[in-house]
C-alpha cells in the first residue's frame, strides 16, 4: 500500500511538527509513506473565495502529485474537504476522480481505513478540550454534529480515548465555529476575532490545559486569540498527541 502524504501549505509553513508527527505516526503502523516533493496546496484559498478559475492550475498540480498512490493522507479536515467536495475547477477525468476519492484526513484514515486498536506509545496526562473543526465535523463527518438527532459518534474522541492519561473536558458550545473560516478571518476580522475570543474563553472556563484539533488553521487562529486575551491554554494538533507528543 503506497501512501502519499499531503502537507497543506500552512502546515508546511507554520506547523512543520504536525507534518512530521503525521509522517512518523503513519510509519509506526508499518506503512510506506512518501511525500511528493512538488506539492503545494489543494486550492482551497481560491475556491473558498469563489475564484475557481484561479484554483484550476493548483488543483491540477495536486492531482498530478498524488495520482500514483493508493491513499492520500493529510492532517487537515478542511483541505480534505476541499479535495473531496470542491476540487472541481478542472475537468473531472478518471484520474481526478480517483485522487479525490482516495484522499483521507488523518483521523478518518486511522479510524476507518487502518481501524487502529491501540496507541501504546501515546500518553498525554492533561485536560484537553477537543475542537471539532467545522469542515471535519460537518463536511467529512468526523463526529455527530450537535444539531442532528442521530446517534452520537466521534472518531477523534475514539482515537484520543486510546491515549493514556488524557482527560477530555466539555465545552458549553462544543461545535460552534471558532471564526477562522479561511479568508473570512482577514476579510471580516472583527467578527472572526470575536468568535475566536468566545471560543478560547469557553475552553479556558472548561479548565482545558490543551486544545486539540485535526486542523492547524483553526488552532493557529485560536492561539492568536488566546494569546491576545492572555489565556493560558496551549494548542496542539491531534497528530502530535496520537504520535506520543510529550508536552
Amino acid at each position: 500500500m503506497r501512501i502519499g502524504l499531503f502537507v497543506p501549505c500552512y502546515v508546511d509553513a507554520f506547523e512543520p511538527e504536525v507534518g512530521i508527527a503525521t509522517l512518523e505516526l503513519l510509519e509506526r503502523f508499518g506503512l510506506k509513506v512518501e511525500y511528493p516533493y512538488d506539492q503545494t496546496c489543494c486550492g482551497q484559498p481560491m475556491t473558498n473565495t469563489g475564484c475557481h478559475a484561479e484554483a484550476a492550475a493548483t488543483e491540477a498540480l495536486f492531482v498530478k502529485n498524488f495520482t500514483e498512490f493508493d491513499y492520500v493522507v493529510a492532517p487537515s479536515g478542511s483541505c480534505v474537504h476541499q479535495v473531496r467536495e470542491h476540487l472541481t475547477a478542472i475537468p473531472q477525468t478518471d484520474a481526478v476522480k480517483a485522487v479525490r476519492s482516495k484522499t483521507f484526513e488523518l483521523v478518518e484514515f486511522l479510524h476507518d481505513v487502518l481501524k487502529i486498536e491501540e496507541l501504546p506509545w501515546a500518553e498525554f496526562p492533561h485536560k484537553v478540550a477537543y475542537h471539532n473543526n467545522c469542515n471535519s465535523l460537518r463536511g467529512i463527518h468526523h463526529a455527530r454534529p450537535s444539531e442532528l438527532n442521530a446517534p452520537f459518534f466521534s472518531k477523534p474522541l475514539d482515537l484520543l480515548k486510546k491515549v493514556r492519561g488524557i482527560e477530555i473536558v466539555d465545552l458549553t458550545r462544543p461545535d460552534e465555529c471558532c471564526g477562522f473560516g479561511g479568508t473570512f478571518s482577514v476579510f471580516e476580522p472583527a467578527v472572526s476575532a470575536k468568535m475566536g475570543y468566545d471560543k478560547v474563553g469557553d475552553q479556558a472556563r472548561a479548565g482545558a490545559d490543551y486544545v486539540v484539533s485535526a486542523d492547524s488553521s483553526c488552532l493557529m487562529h485560536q492561539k492568536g486569540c488566546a494569546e491576545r486575551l492572555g489565556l493560558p491554554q496551549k494548542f496542539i494538533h491531534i497528530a502530535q498527541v496520537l504520535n506520543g507528543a510529550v508536552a
Partner: protein
Amino acid sequence: MSADDLRPNEDALHPDVQPASDESARGQDGQRLQHAEAASKPIRAPATREPQPRGAKIRGDRPIDQAEAAERFLAAPLHQKAHDERLWDVRKKRDVATQAIPEWEELRELASQIKTHTLSHLDEYLEQFEAAAKANGVHVHWAADGAEHNRIVHGILKDHGAKTLIKSKSMLTEECGFRHYMAANGIDIIETDLGERIQQLDDEEPSHVVMPAVHKTRIDVAEVFARTLGTDPTNDDAHYLAESQRMTTRPHILQADAGMTGCNFAIAETGTVVTCTNEGNADLSGNVPKLQIHSIGIEKLIPRVEHLGVFIRVLARSALGSTITQYTSHFRKPRAGSEMHMVLVDNGRSARLGMEEFWTSLKCIRCGACMNTCPVYRRSGGLSYGATYSGPIGLIIDPTFNKRKYSTLPFSSTMNGSCTNVCPVKINIHEQIFAWRKVLAEEHQIPLLKQGMMKAAGAVLSRPAAYRAAIGTADSALRALPRFAVYNPLNTWGKGREMPETPKQSFHSWYKQNRMKDGAK
C-alpha cells in the same frame, strides 16, 4: 476586549425573552446534549446605557459593507452579548425540542420532499389554490412584483375608502416595501406583532424573521416606547412594556378599516391561508375588520391539509424550541358581511425557481433557525446585512433581488454548515453560499483586490518553485507567510490576534534534510 468580557452575561434582553428552564439534558440516545450545561442566566438590566448600534449603511446599489456594520455591533458589547446569548438560548431550546421526538430527521426529510414536490409542480398547485379560494368566495389577485402587490392592496383599500390597516408580521410585505409605500399614500398602518411594532415605531427594518426586534435590549424598547407611546422612560419591565404596547394597539385594532396578514402555509386543496403566531395578532388582524387581505408568497403553497401537520411540527420546534405556536389560524372563507382578498406574489420567485443551484432556497419556511445558530449572525446583528433577509437564508436569497448590492453577503460566512443541519426543510444553505461565491466571482461582482489576490495566490500555489521561494527559508517565510498564508493585505489578522510564531524550518526543508539526505528521491 479583555478577560472581563469572558464573564457570564447578565445583560438586559428583549421582552420576548423567557428565562430558560433547563429541560432534559439528554437526547434520544441517552447522550448528553452537548451544550446542555450552557444554562441561561437570570437577566438584570445593565447599569450603564449603551446606545443601540444601527444597521448597515445603505448607499443605493453600492455593495453592502456587512463587516463594517458588524464591527459597530461588536463595539456595543452589551447589545452583542445579549443578542448572542438570547439566540443561542433559542438554539439550545430548539435542540431539546428536536431531540425529544425520535422521528425528527424523518420529519425534516418529509418536509423537504413535500416542498420539493410542490415547487416542481407549482403552476398546478397555484391554479388549484386559486380555484378553491374563488369557490370559497375569496377575491384572488396576482402580483408579479412588490410594486404591483402594493398597488393592488392600495386599490382594494381605496375601493372601500379604508384609511387604516392593521397587520400581522409578514416578511413578504417587508420585501415589497409595503409600509413605506402606504405611508406615502396616506394609509395608516399599525403592526400588531410586538416585535414588528417596536421596529415600526423606531422606523427600523426587522432584524430577524421571527423576532424582529431581537437586536434591541429592554432599555432600547423602553426608550422607543417612551418617545413614541409616552410610556415611562425609566421603566423597562418587560410586562409593563408589553402591556403598554397592547393597550395602545388595541383601540387601533378595534377601529381599523382593514386587516392584513401574511401567510405561513397556503393549502392548495382547500384554498386556505394558515398563519402561525404566538400573540394571536394574526387572528385579530384577520378577524376584526370587515375587510381582510392576505399576502401570500407563491412558494408558500403545500398540496393538502394532511401535509400541514408535518410543517406545524417542524416550524415551532425549529423557530423557538416550542412544540407548537400558540395560535395556528386557518383563514378560508369571508365571514358573513365581510370581504376577503388574497394576493399571490411572485416578486422574483419564479425567476429563482429557474436557478439550478439556488431554487431549493424556495423551500424556506422562514423559521429563523439558521439565523439563531449562525455564529456570524449572532455576533453581527441582523441589521448589519442591510437587506430584508439576514443571516444564512439572507445570504442565499438576497443576491437574487439585487446581485450588486448584495454581492458581499455570501462572503459574510465561515461556511461552517450549522445552518444546513438545523434547517427543517433541509436547504443546503452553506453549499449555496459556496456556489454564490463562484457565481459572483465569475460575474466580477467581488472586489478587484480580492480577485487579484486570489489570482496571485493561484499563480504561486500552482508553481512549486515559486511556492518554495515564497516559504523556502525561515527568513523569507517570516516575511512572506503572513501575507501568503492568510492573503492579508492590511494585516487585519494582527489587529485582533497575535501572529503565529515563525517556524525554524518548513516541513519541506525538514523533509529534505532528514529524509532525502542523498538526494535519493
